[in-house]
């Protein structure tokens, strides 16, 4: 948000305040589900069984959170999600940067054809290949490993596309200056060009992280071992029909607990995340 735009330069005043009020109202609607969940999580399961309106009345309790601390798999799931999301993001960044540099800067036979073929990959939805991929991972013995959870995300061509465009936008003068500075090809890539792509790296990293964090189907069918559950799979494993024996308050506490880290991280880095996401559009 670098420049203030003058979209409201004319006719400020009442209309402006009206818009603001409407937006705030919408924002309240936006947070209601979250607040509702937090409220539910602060009540005992027994009380909720009788009446959920009791959310508005004392007494509230942290018993559900205490229960999570002593006996929930949510820690392990969180850890797995963090490992998988971070690993996938790093992997995508490394692979996309290397490939993006290759496509943008190096001459090799068939480069353009290969690049177009990679672009075609943008049109392949994960779901269309998931069954065959699942069999493939079975043959490679990759299920229930972190690599098995991370690798599919790394094959997505979006990052390569983004990085190629970004590398192409860097003037070749920079490369040439570095060549005259006695830098090896790899050094040019690593020390000179790569640091210049940091904004793109941030965008790509955040997108990949969020994608990995929210991915559901693949971790569900690949990380089937409870110790390999990611957060999405773990939470889902406790929420379907018959498993609701644990109680509504407990489930909500678990959801809140599981969301907290990512929401906190989000709040801290909001500025950068917003900038990175906006960066993707330009």
């Amino acid at each position, binding site marked *: 948000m670098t420049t203030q735009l003058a979209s409201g330069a004319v006719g400020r005043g009442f209309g402006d305040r009206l818009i603001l009020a409407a937006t705030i109202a919408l924002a309240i609607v936006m947070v209601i589900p979250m607040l509702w969940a937090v409220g539910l999580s602060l009540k005992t399961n027994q009380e909720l069984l009788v009446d959920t309106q009791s959310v508005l009345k004392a007494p509230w309790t942290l018993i559900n959170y205490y229960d999570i601390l002593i006996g929930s798999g949510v820690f392990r799931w969180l850890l797995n999600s963090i490992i998988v999301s971070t690993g996938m993001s790093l992997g995508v960044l490394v692979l996309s940067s290397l490939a993006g540099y290759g496509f943008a800067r190096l001459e090799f036979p068939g480069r353009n054809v290969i690049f177009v073929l990679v672009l075609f990959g943008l049109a392949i939805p994960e779901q269309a290949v998931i069954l065959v991929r699942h069999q493939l991972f079975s043959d490679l013995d990759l299920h229930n490993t972190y690599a098995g959870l991370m690798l599919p995300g790394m094959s997505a061509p979006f990052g390569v596309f983004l990085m190629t465009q970004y590398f192409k936008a860097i003037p070749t003068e920079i490369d040439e200056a570095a060549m005259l500075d006695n830098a090896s090809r790899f050094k040019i890539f690593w020390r000179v060009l790569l640091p210049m792509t940091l904004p793109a790296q941030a965008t790509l990293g955040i997108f990949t992280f969020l994608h990995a964090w929210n991915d559901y189907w693949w971790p*569900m069918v690949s990380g089937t071992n409870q110790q390999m559950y990611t957060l999405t799979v773990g939470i889902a494993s406790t929420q379907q029909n018959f498993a609701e024996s644990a109680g509504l308050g407990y489930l909500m506490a678990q959801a809140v607990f599981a969301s907290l880290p990512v929401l906190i991280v989000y709040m801290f880095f909001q500025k950068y995340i917003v900038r990175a996401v906006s960066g993707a559009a330009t």
Partner: protein
Amino acid sequence: MIRPIAILLSCLALTSCGVQQPPNEIVVQRFFGTCNAQYGTRTDVAAAEGECGIMTTLINKFSAENPDVRVRVSPVAWPGYNQLAAQLAAGDPPDLVTMHLSSIPDYQSRALIEPLGKDLRAVGVDPQGFTAASSAGVNIQGDVFGLPIDNWAPLWHINMNYFRQAGLVKDGKPILPRSPEELLEHARRFKAATGKPYLVQTLAIERASYARNLYTLLMQQNATIFPDPQHIHLQSPEAKRVVDLFRQIYVEDLTTKNLDYAASTNAFINGAGGVFIVGTWLIGDFEAESRRADRPLSNGYTVRPFPQLYAARDATYIDGHAWVMPAKERTPQQRDAVFRLLKFFADNDFEWSRTGHLPAYQAVIDSERFNALPHRREIAKLSATGMTLPASVQRQFPVADIVGEEMSAAITGHKTVDAALADAEHRINDLLFHVL
């Protein structure tokens, strides 16, 4: 260039480790929910209640008694078959899995689970001791492919306080309908007297309960559901009668609507209606609720088998849970541990039957202490009247899904009854035709 690639490779090597299973560890995958907060470390099985509590404490107790074995429990969302399929396809299944008797043929026919008979006998579990229904579920082609732990059936859980209000109690016992017409009449009377719907049903986001009702009432009419293992027969007057009945109940608001499983359970506990049609597994929970003061169910809960609404036969669709052992390589230690755990479950089947399920062992059913449990005498006849679908029918779970979906559509009025039955029959036959 070399360095990052080396880093990448070593990262890959690191991440490909995943989880290593120690040689004395067995992974037990089950549904029945998670309740670690309440039962996480408890081993006092007798004090536990409900499926989740009893299952958790049983396994805790086994672990405590067998310190050389590590049991890793992996609870899955019910019924867990998608996950199991993924695990089997990945070649990485758990060591023991809970499975419905009706699903065992699917896995047995593809050699995905191992025969257990010889080893069970070796640890002292005699498959001859299984109840008839359990035995039929796990015995395939001359071998035993699972350790049954219970049988269950749809039951009528009754709020006696409302029944009394509606004049449907005689000699302290609920008066239950003996025909569809009587059912409607009771329901109307009930509604007039209490203002509540007669039935509490799980109608939303649910398939299995529809199928259980349909199977039960078809069996009571002696209708042929599967003329042969590859075909279902649903476009029959018998089936139409059943679905019409439920449709009528729905139309007249004689049932709760739009409740999913959790909501309907809560609704019954909170006094939303008279009869909750659901399985055996909630007897323990409702019984506990009836002992609490000032609740709709206080001192007013009883349970009965599905009443016989059609004259032809007193029958109830019955299924059951069993432990099965997916085929995979195991260390001798693990194999040993698996059978010790199975033996433990066989020995503790009484504890499991406190959930409300019918024991899988005739000896337990006949036992004094089982019959001393509340309401068990009322449902004991299920071991005689319970019927399963033919074991030769594959894919019973997806079949029940389709039955449930189409029945739901018919009952809630999205389709005509005839269309729903025709669609169900067509879809199921298509499914069965394409089973390889």
